[in-house]
């Protein structure tokens, strides 16, 4: 963007290369339910943009103008739309376009248009772009590890171009930074179920169970790994109760964190799957109950539901419902 010697932005109407263009103001209509307050610079740039758009001028100056408008308001999809038309026509180096998006995405990392445009550019550039895109999304995650657009972009790159080799390690790294990062847990599940190098869910089940259990033990009050653990067994819940590791996890957690809703809730699921709990687990539940407030003749699962009603009052109705749905064979 042209600036004066003092670094002040030169209004477009004073730039010689725009002398032949008549700007076109926005028609706001008679009754703006959502009002539009323009800053003068933005208004001017948009007026020139409309002139370009209406005359459909696909030129370098039109491209430069879209850069200027986008920098002021990256949400305007019509400007992006026109920019792509220009890019397609003037045959410009798209690697440069990737850099333009880099600088914008750092400031506006939650803007839909920017990510969509980035994908459009990456698609045109092809598989060569893979390491750049993986690095770029990493950089976004270093500032906001849960950025939904960036995750979606990264998954797209992996699916279309590959680059899975380091993905599981990367998930591990992110979870070491923040074990509560649900996006990283989701990516981990995406990786073990989609990476062509890992053999799929069944091949990964044991090692992932070990990893998840260790993670839960270090910080049990964390919704995400408990869900991840369920996901590992979603095709075969029977495996959860035939081995000892998962019931033992519930025992260990409840032993140190008797108020952990996730652990109790997981234990309840295990009981519903048919687990015959160890005497240690029974003792722990026994120690948490308040028999004087309970209805008589509760099964162990019924007791767990009753404890959860007290422990998680915001969702009391859910736990009451769980109790009403307990399979009869465990009741």
């Amino acid at each position, binding site marked *: 963007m042209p600036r004066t010697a003092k670094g002040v932005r030169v209004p477009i109407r004073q730039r010689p290369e725009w002398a032949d263009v008549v700007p076109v103001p*926005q028609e706001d209509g008679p009754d703006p*339910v959502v*009002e539009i307050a323009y800053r003068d610079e933005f208004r001017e740039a948009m007026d020139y943009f409309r002139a370009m758009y209406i005359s459909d001028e696909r030129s370098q100056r039109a491209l430069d103008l879209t850069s200027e408008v986008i920098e002021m308001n990256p949400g*305007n999809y019509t400007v992006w739309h026109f920019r792509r038309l220009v890019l397609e026509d003037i045959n410009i180096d798209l690697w440069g376009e990737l850099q333009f998006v880099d600088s914008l995405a750092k400031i506006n990392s939650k803007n839909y248009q920017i990510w969509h445009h980035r994908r459009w550019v990456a698609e045109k550039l092809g598989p060569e772009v893979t390491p750049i895109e993986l690095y770029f999304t990493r950089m976004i995650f270093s500032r906001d590890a849960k950025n939904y657009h960036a995750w979606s972009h990264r998954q797209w790159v992996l699916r279309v171009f590959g680059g899975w080799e380091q993905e599981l390690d990367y998930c591990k790294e992110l979870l070491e930074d923040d074990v509560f990062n649900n996006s990283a847990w989701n990516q981990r599940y995406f990786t073990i179920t989609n990476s062509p190098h890992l053999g799929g869910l069944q091949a990964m089940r044991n090692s992932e169970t070990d990893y998840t259990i260790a993670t839960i033990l270090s910080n049990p009050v964390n919704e995400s790994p408990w869900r991840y653990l369920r996901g590992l067994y979603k095709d075969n819940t029977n495996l959860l109760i035939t081995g000892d590791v998962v019931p033992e996890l519930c025992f260990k957690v409840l032993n140190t964190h008797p108020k952990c809703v996730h652990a109790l809730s997981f234990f309840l699921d295990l009981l519903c799957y048919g687990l015959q709990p160890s005497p240690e687990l029974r003792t722990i539940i026994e120690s948490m109950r308040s028999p004087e407030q309970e209805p008589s003749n509760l099964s162990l699962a019924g007791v767990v539901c009753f404890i959860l009603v007290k422990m998680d009052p915001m969702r009391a109705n859910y736990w009451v419902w769980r109790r009403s749905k307990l399979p009869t064979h465990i009741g």
Partner: protein
Amino acid sequence: MEVGSLEVEKHVKFIITLEKNKDNFDSLAMEHLRLSGAYWGLTTLDILHNLGTVDHDEVISWIMECWHECGGFGGNIGHDPHILYTLSAVQVLALLDKIEILDIDKISSYIASLQKEDGSFSGDIWGEIDTRFSYCAICCLSILRSLDKINVEKAVSYIVSCKNMDGGFGCTPGAESHAGQIFCCIAALAITGSLTHVDKDLLGWWLCERQVDSGGLNGRPEKLPDVCYSWWVLSSLIIIDRVHWIDKNKLANFILNCQDKENGGISDRPDDAVDVFHTYFGVAGLSLLEYPGLKAIDPAYALPVDVVNRLFFKTA
């Protein structure tokens, strides 16, 4: 804390005077989505029984100027057509009982042209795919009674392919569950009569775990609560008939605490700046919570129930 009640008159005033608050309302970035802004503002007014305070004919003629010959609507006059604004336009016209002025054939053909081989929808000619657009397409075509223009079976199977192991849905297959995307998927499945594909108990549990100690709802685990999720989470819970699993009073109080009690409007969290988007989601959320004096809103079409009834039960 003293919660108080919904400041109906102030919110109505906030919406109809947005135009005059130029200095307070940072709407530089709003021009291109003014049609959605109109939907948020007018639906809020209708829920508050104040739709009569705006000139319907002026709104309608402006909306029709946003229409393109290809069948889609842009977010404002001179902006390119996009499925998001096409839905907003159709919703507003339904609200104003003026669906009949639309060229239903052209609009539905435009939407049908955005469906891909795998059943998904792109938002415009540039091909961005997202389950949000599946919702826009299905909701819009249903309002126009033109669902036969698309392959509904494939549209449903694409949405189902975005289901995750936690019962939720993301924007594309494998993407993290997110309450906004869940609303889009669940509402689209509800409209097409395909809720059998939803594991209601599993999803219901995920959704009710979104309620945090303040009573507000977040959109993903470990994220901050935000008034907009009063809509996304709550409408989904209602559609799958699990809304009694959360503490509705605490949520209503959270929303009421996000009001600007002096100048009207609702913000994302208590004491933040208000805007029309969060005002809509707050009021719509309270309507779903059956707050007294508000019009009931339909959780799938995101329009007042009487409007939806008028659409589907009006005698020809």
